[in-house]
């Protein structure tokens, strides 16, 4: 663009790389030397880093590094730090009356947050991340307002502490109490507690009775016949009219909520082969070991479950 007599054209000084496109040439400028030094410094830094920090792979693990840095140890330190920070409020949570926790804003906020993460870690595998349970498998939905053993906070607390029908905790709920297998062909432990051996036809009659009392379509004739069998064998646990009994964990058969399912097929399967869901004990410590959850943790989970919408 500018006329000829430019004195020191860069092209004369450094030359070009020989690349030329549409007359645009690429100058062969040297790189700044400090780039080179930066590059060497980076190599030096990298070498120093591999000496200071875990780096070189060995057969089992890696070189530890002279600084002894370990992210695992850092995490442990962090956990200890936060445990120490949480210690006072955990102590307060354990000391408080169970029913008073939800009235204390600070305690409730802590319990909800802690309970949520504890639930996700320990309870979600069966009850689901959203606490909706798994109906077909008999993991109860914790969001609804029907409870096998009670939905008040202390009842929830007891259930979590001792579990249900487990063989570990002597205080577990319903040890030896379960839904028997009523079929006359059934064998095995679940059949032992049945007070009668019912034929397939009789089971069908009871199923129709249960369908009737839960407000579903049922065969009237079968249901009437089933009522007699029900009164004779089922009332002991499920109560008069099938309204359930929380002391025995016997579900209410008249409502819209079913642990395993309220349709004819599922009810038939339940009566034929029996049911006996198990929940582990979270607060029982066997000799020489510690419980799965501390009392503070259990209380936090109880408050969290109680807040999910069905709490009584």
């Amino acid at each position: 663009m500018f006329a000829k007599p430019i004195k020191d054209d860069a092209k004369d000084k450094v030359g070009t790389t020989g690349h030329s496109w549409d007359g645009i040439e690429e100058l062969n400028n040297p790189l700044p030397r400090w780039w080179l030094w930066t590059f060497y410094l980076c190599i030096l830094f990298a070498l120093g880093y591999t000496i200071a920090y875990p780096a070189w792979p060995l057969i089992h693990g890696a070189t530890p590094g002279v600084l002894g840095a370990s992210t695992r140890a850092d995490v442990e330190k962090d956990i200890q730090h936060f445990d120490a920070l949480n210690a006072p409020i955990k102590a307060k949570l354990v000391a408080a009356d169970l029913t008073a926790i939800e009235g204390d804003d600070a305690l409730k906020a802590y319990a909800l947050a802690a309970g949520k993460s504890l639930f996700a870690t320990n309870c979600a595998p069966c009850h689901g991340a959203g606490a909706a349970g798994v109906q077909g498998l008999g993991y109860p939905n914790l969001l609804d307002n029907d409870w096998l053993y009670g939905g008040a906070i202390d009842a929830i607390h007891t259930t979590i502490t001792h579990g249900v029908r487990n063989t570990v905790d002597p205080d577990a709920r319903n040890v030896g109490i379960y839904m028997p297998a009523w079929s006359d062909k059934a064998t095995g432990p679940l059949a032992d507690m049945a007070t009668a051996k019912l034929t397939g036809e009789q089971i069908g009659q009871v199923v129709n009775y249960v369908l009737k009392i839960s407000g579903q379509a049922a065969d009237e004739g079968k249901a009437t016949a089933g009522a007699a069998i029900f009164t004779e064998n089922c009332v002991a646990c499920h109560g008069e009219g099938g309204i359930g009994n929380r002391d025995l964990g016997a579900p209410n058969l008249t409502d819209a909520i079913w642990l395993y399912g309220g349709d004819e097929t599922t009810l038939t399967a339940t009566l034929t082969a029996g049911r006996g869901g198990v929940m582990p004990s979270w607060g029982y410590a066997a000799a020489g070991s510690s419980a799965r959850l501390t009392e503070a943790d259990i209380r936090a989970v109880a408050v969290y479950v109680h807040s999910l919408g069905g709490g009584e």
Partner: protein
Amino acid sequence: MSDTQDPPQLYAAREPIFPRRVKGTFRTLKWWLMGFMLGIYYITPWLRWDRGPLMPDQAVLLDLSSRRFFFFMIEIWPNEFYFVAGLLIMAGLGLFLFTSAAGRVWCGYACPQTVWTDLFILVERWVEGDRNARIRLHRQPWNWEKLIKNGIKWWLWLLIGLATGGAWVFYFTDAPTLFWGLLNGTASPVAYITMAVLTFTTFFFGGFAREQICIYACPWPRIQAAMMDEDTITIGYRSWRGEPRGKQSVQTSGDCIDCMACVNVCPMGIDIRDGQQLACITCGLCIDACNGIMDKIGKPHGLVGYLALTDEPLEKAGKADKPIWKHILRPRTIVYTVLWAGIGIGLVAALFLRANLDASITPVRNPPYVTLSNGDIRNTYDMRLRNKHGEDRWFTVSATAGGDVTLALEGTDALRVLVKANETLVQRLFVTAKAGTVAATAHHLPLRLWINDVAGTEAPKAERIYKDTIFNGKEDN
């Protein structure tokens, strides 16, 4: 073996640059700009703004720990971060506009790298003298004089660096509190670390790296080339007037007397007479230098000056330049201006339209619904209520839906919840539809939830907003 030419050098050491002192219009303008911009930078965090007892009273505050940005009367919450994004986009478009109109004005006048380098060179000149003295000092072997002068210079640079980093941290927390904390050593380690890093980078970038940052480190100069065209006003050398350069006494010479004044004052160490080039930041100092020389030899100003490429053929033909507005008003600059202003108007409108009550409602999707013992269907929602009033306020919730639904809030029997001043409350909401109703049996229905601001002690004006969501039914019921 006949090739005696040296192989090309792959690496070159930095050529030190010793810009000479210069006086003139652009130098004066740059001093004022430097004072103005450094003034803004240092004073802003100390401006106070009364926001009431519960809020910080710093006019400009980026409160990262509480997730609030304060800018005088404007308060930005995290959910309104689009304001910040919008401002950044406007800053970007503003740079595009200025670059396409007047070249690298940002680089030459406003870039912190330029401003601080200018300040560092000023300090260097105070301590070591002007160009010739500095060159002499640079070339002489290390002795007491060199040691002392460099020592003083470096200490002053470090002090400027410390003040730079020191001012920066005040933007992020209450300035007076932090100032005393810094003095008595109780401030957060983050503040000290930030200050140390910025002190070092300022010292290094302004004192030693200087033009290397612009040439090798900064991507912006390379991008700017895409915004400039032949109508962009930039700094150039009128070779048709200056060449052939040489002594004034020679009759055939042009106006350039090859005094090197323009080269000696250049902070980038280039010769503007080589034409527009990658390293030129268009700081205007060569114009001042050349105009000073032209005054002395009795020639008109403007041998080096602001001009556009399209002016060159006109001037060569002895015609007048295109008027400046014809250079500036082009489709490209108009598009940039329209975009810039459009975003600006949008942001201002959004600022005035936003409510003091803000809420979001998220349906809990795991599970989508819960069957209750009497067969009713319940949905759960997580509400986030943001109370931007400077006082505690009560809110109620109501719903308009296709069917009859009942509402309940977790943890309280009333449908009323208190949100503390300037806080966000996460509240669980239960909505229940009677068994057999449309809402309970439809796959899902639209649900409009109203949030009413019912009681403020000062402003009892009820403010209400709604959020639309859905209600999931039990389809196979």
